[in-house]
């Protein structure tokens, strides 16, 4: 190995890390501490109507999912009495956290009665929205919270309707029953037009032209459409290009299996589709309304395509209003359309969120003191430092001059961890918690082990009679494979835990993964050049092996 290259590697690496560290110190940037260490905000929610314990638990889980999908890490969500309490760690962007929590309305399924273009005819496709449109954070005042499902009775013939015709070619903005093109032999439903649904009102030209609608952003639904008392609402679509009169809610997002909505690529058309599973009770409600739309009944009149449309509404905004292309949907639904990936993901997220059984609203915000507190962090730091000092003392006794490499390597590693922890906790919402500290304390041992494996190997090579200069690259090559394999498994555990678990486990996994990567990086960019260079100096003369811990126990001279 070229000496100059080794020097360059080491110097550049150390300079880079030192530079970042100085930048952090100069700007007084330090890791953001988590809820347990620093305290944070607590938001208290209450349901707007009676909810039983199961509903509250469901809301708790949904809220946590929602926060995490917005990148707010390690929220502490629990049910207390009738309230739901969300403890947020010192999130960097509190507005973002509130935004994530504010859109906690329920998703409704409503038949589309009539739609009106509010802009000069553009290429609006039903069921699609303009790119970049995320779920608006504003709760529209016009959103009625009508969760009453009409008492529809659906014949039990959904399953029989499924023929094995395979998935039909996907059209734009359509609900398709996956895996089955329904046969039309389903008996006519006796769908009751109950509670005065006001089917007449939907037909008439009640929607005056609303040319003044804003082009972008969710327009306030308090448009010129007269409100009615029959459970109908008028709602714009996401980009405000269309204003629809919607029938009463035929079901809520609870129709969908929790967290089942996923984005897929349709293999036939290559377009993005959203698929979701229906669950037991929800399936009945869904199929009931779907059938009405499919047949173009007055409760869900046929759109120009010949089929009725069913809207997915959140907070008074039509998220998607595809035409219904099947009589019944045995178990699952796919929505296809001219989606971009983002749009499809937004829609899937909306459907997933839709499982809120009841509406919740924010009651108050409290500040929270830490449970562990900075004293715990300080104690952990002091104890950790004492532990590291003792470990290093042992290493000095055992490895003599080689221990210099360990001390320098650990120092570089520590600074790198600090820099990265600062970056991560500031740029993401993964604040530094006791869990993260656990990961780091454990990784001290694993990091020191890297040196131990290396040096034990080095000593073996020297014992066999090699010079240190000769032994160093050989030992490194052998060790590198071992270290890489072992650290790879550690990294694997972090990655899997990070992507598949929730809450504090994720924060821990993140920090453990970072320390593992740092270990390998420091080993390659710092330890390797340092040992190679030192092995070539007189100070590390292999004629005196005791100076790096070989033969110290033999006594006497050889």
């Amino acid at each position: 190995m070229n000496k100059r290259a080794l020097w360059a590697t080491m110097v550049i690496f150390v300079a880079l890390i030192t530079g970042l560290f100085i930048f952090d110190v100069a700007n007084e940037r330090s890791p953001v501490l988590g809820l347990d260490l620093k305290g944070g905000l607590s938001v208290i929610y209450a349901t707007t109507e009676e909810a039983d314990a199961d509903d509250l638990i469901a809301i708790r889980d949904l809220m946590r999912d929602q926060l995490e999908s917005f990148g707010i890490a390690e929220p502490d969500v629990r049910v207390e009495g009738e309230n739901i309490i969300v403890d947020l760690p010192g999130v960097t962007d509190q507005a973002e956290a509130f935004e994530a929590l504010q859109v906690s309305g329920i998703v409704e399924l409503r038949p589309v009665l009539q739609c009106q273009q509010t802009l000069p005819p553009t290429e609006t496709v039903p069921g699609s929205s303009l790119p970049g449109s995320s779920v608006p954070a504003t709760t529209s005042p016009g959103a009625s919270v009508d969760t009453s499902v009409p008492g529809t009775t659906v014949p039990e013939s959904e399953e029989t309707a499924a023929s094995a015709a395979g998935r039909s070619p996907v059209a734009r903005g359509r609900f398709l029953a996956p895996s089955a093109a329904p046969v039309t032999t389903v008996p006519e439903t006796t769908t009751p037009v109950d509670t005065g649904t006001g089917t007449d009102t939907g037909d008439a030209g009640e929607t005056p032209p609303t040319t003044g609608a804003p082009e972008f952003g969710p327009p306030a639904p308090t448009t010129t459409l007269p409100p009615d008392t029959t459970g109908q609402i008028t709602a714009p679509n996401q980009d405000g290009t269309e204003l629809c009169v919607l029938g009463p809610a035929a079901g809520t997002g609870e129709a969908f299996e929790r967290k089942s909505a996923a984005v897929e690529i349709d293999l036939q058309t290559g377009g993005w589709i959203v698929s979701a599973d229906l669950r037991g009770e929800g399936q009945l409600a869904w199929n009931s309304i779907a059938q009405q739309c499919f047949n173009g009944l007055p409760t869900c009149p046929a759109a120009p395509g010949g089929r009725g449309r069913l809207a997915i509404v959140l907070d008074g905004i039509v998220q998607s209003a595809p035409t219904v292309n099947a009589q019944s949907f045995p178990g699952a639904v796919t929505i296809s359309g001219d989606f971009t990936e983002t749009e499809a993901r937004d829609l899937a997220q909306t459907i997933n969120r839709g499982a809120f059984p009841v509406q919740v609203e924010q009651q108050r915000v409290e500040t929270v003191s830490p449970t562990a507190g900075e004293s715990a962090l300080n104690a952990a730091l002091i104890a950790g430092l004492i532990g590291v000092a003792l470990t290093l003392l042992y290493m000095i006794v055992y490895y003599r001059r080689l221990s210099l490499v360990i001390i320098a390597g650990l120092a570089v590693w520590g600074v790198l961890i600090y820099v990265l922890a600062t970056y991560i906790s500031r740029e993401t919402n993964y604040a530094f918690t006791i869990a993260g500290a656990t990961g780091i304390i454990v990784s001290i041992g694993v990091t020191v082990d890297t040196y131990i494996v290396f040096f034990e190997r080095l000593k073996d090579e020297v014992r066999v009679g090699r010079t240190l200069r000769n032994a160093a690259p050989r030992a490194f090559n052998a060790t590198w494979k071992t270290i890489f394999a072992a650290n790879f498994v550690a990294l694997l555990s972090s990655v899997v835990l990070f992507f598949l678990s929730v809450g504090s486990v994720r924060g821990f996994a993140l920090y453990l993964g970072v320390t593992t990567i740092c270990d390998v990086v420091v080993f390659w960019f710092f330890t390797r050049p340092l040992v190679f260079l030192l092995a070539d100096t007189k100070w590390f003369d292999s004629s005196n092996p005791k100076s790096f811990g070989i033969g110290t126990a033999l006594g006497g001279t050889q």
Partner: protein
Amino acid sequence: MSVTEPRSGESTPITVTGADGRSSIGGMPIARTKTGRLLEGQTAVDFVGGRRFGLIASGLLILITVGSLFIQGLNLGIDFTGGVSWDVPSENGFGPADADEVLAQAGLSTEGARIQERSSDAGEFIKVQVGDQPEEVGTQLRQAFADSAGVDLESVDVNLVSSTWGSEVTSKAVRALLIFLALVAIYISLRFEWRMAIASIIAMVHDVLISVGIYSLFQFIVTPSTVIAFLTILGYSLYDTIVVFDRIKENEARFGTTKPPYADVLNVSMNQVLMRSLNTTISSIVPVVSLLFVGSFLMGEDTLAEFAIALLVGMATGTYSSIFVAVPLLYLFKNSDANWAGSRNSPHVIGEPLREMVVSGNMSGRRARGRAAVASQQADAVVPSLTGANTTEQAKVALSHPPRPRKKTRR
């Protein structure tokens, strides 16, 4: 960890005692004390011969663990079980210390309690939460808190609290674990072999089980931090086992042609990595012990103990299981393997011949050992127990390649 060195002399001794009473192998002097031999990597512990010790001890520990889990279960904290919460106004100077006192007077453990200061537009208050208490406790202590805080009974809110760590979190973590196990099994199977994958995963499960068992046995409170510590152990255990297996794999490749008994490969590898295992254990455990004693006991931060105990137990068993569980298992799996079956019935070497193999890094197959035995018998016959360098060389040549002569270094 106590390992006894086997007595030498049961097999043909190859180590030669020099005139000054010092042993040496291939010109390398052998330390006279056990510690010295350990430090110099000159041990000759018969790990394979003592495999039953490890398997039986671990079996017993797991039996105790399962028994304890079955009988008394785990002492789950408030995050898992939910509990009771009081909101006590702190306008009259009620503080966390007072809350502690009220709890202590009521005979409730403050260990699992969570006490927070909170403030909102409505004023400041202390939120006290304790886990898993009957509902009456809520009303009983409401009066006590109201008295202590000097406020009306009505100003103290009592509520039942749900768990924050619901079944969903657990099921997600379990799913993550299963996927992780599958990936690890695939990776180790590809990088090493499937038997090693099984052995290392069993060793890992063993470590986590025993750590959980300690929490059940002593009824330590399990918090989310503890669970995280358990997950850490999982990674650490695998890490440690892989380092050991890597050496075994390397020696397998190196001696694949000479075909010594598989036990020899294991014994040599284990003795070669023994010092590394000890060093790693020390350097990993010292920070955790420091956390437990300095941070938790001396500085009184109980939260640190929540995971320090789990980590301590997990790391100790992690190193232990790599040597005493994973390797014996590997021996069981592999000894009957066709590749190593040739010498299955020949006994593995112990004592000085093992030391010789450990130190020289060379291993002999059956044939080579036969030659070595002849050579050393000849040597013994010529000069019994007092031999010079000659015989050493003779025995050594029969056993292995001598180290390459040192080349002159270029400057």
